[in-house]
């Protein structure tokens, strides 16, 4: 069965998840990987949904807009090409960054990682203490190919930390299977 990507965003209030998933269920959808979270007082939803062959992304989007669009939710549904996840070769690493907020932190860190062919697979940021001097917290997971030089990347991130005036830590993200 095909899959669609559903995104929804709007002012947070009780009942958003129930309303959106109710429409999806009514159209025969089955939720697979999803991420839903509060961002800056809004609620953001990203869902991969398996839908019956008879269901189109456009029709599902119209149904969602008709049902929850009036409640201040911006909704989009797009068809997605099936992707085989497959085990990545290489190693998983975590990057944590914190310091005074300033424009360009995410871009600079992401650029450094991309130069090492690192693939960011998860990233979240938070602005904390919004008053006079807000702090910025960035946590991300990155996959490095086997050929990457983690020590060189670590050195570059340290230099970047000095330049940006923040703290950056790179550590292996190795899980033990028990």
């Amino acid at each position, binding site marked *: 069965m095909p899959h669609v990507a559903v995104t929804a965003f709007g002012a947070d209030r009780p009942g958003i998840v129930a309303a959106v998933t109710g429409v999806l269920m009514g159209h025969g959808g089955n939720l697979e990987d999803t991420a839903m979270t509060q961002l800056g007082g809004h609620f953001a939803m990203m869902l991969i949904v398996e839908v019956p062959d008879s269901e189109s992304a456009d029709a599902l989007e119209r149904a969602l807009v008709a049902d929850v669009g009036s409640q201040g939710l911006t909704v989009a549904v797009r068809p997605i090409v099936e992707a085989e996840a497959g085990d990545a070769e290489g190693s998983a690493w975590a990057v944590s960054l914190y310091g005074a907020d300033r424009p360009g932190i995410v871009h600079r860190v992401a650029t450094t990682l991309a130069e090492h062919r690192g693939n960011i*697979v998860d990233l979240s940021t938070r602005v904390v203490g919004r008053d006079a001097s807000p702090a910025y917290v960035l946590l991300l997971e990155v996959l490095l190919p086997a050929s990457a030089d983690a020590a060189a990347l670590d050195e570059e991130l340290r230099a970047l930390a000095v330049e940006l005036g923040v703290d950056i830590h790179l550590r292996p993200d*190795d899980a033990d299977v*028990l």
Partner: protein
Amino acid sequence: MIRPVLQLPHHVLGTPCAPVGELDDVVRALGRDLLDTMRAASHSVGVAAPQIGISRRAFCVDVTGHRKARSCHGEVVLFDPVVLEASSPEIAREGCMSVPDLTGDVARPTALVVQGLGMDGEVHTYEVDAFEARAFQHELDHLDGLLFLDRVVADDRVFRRRVYR
């Protein structure tokens, strides 16, 4: 005998196990099956009875050669284990043979004292720390019907297992 390792969504994994009580031939056979199954899974450092479908309080652990291990008692089989002492916790990422594809950050005491019956029917007390302590607690949780998913420090600290080490 090597037993198949059950995976989610098998309900025995979420069910608290019954005590073993007296050691008899059936219980000793369970202990041998746990060891055989652990040895057969080269990356495994422990197996709990519910993972092979037996809802009894028994597990085995062996952290020999693991780079994060400090204390190491080799192959340990324990029946009806109880925790006598536990230190303050530390967060680390773990996965489970019964939970494919996912890992999660779990806070666990870094040292503990555990007592239970061994294969010889005698009471054994183990002082374990570092990775061996984590392995003991992971298996102890199985006996209470708990997976690492029940213990993750926050709901966004569960991850796709990407690299199999």
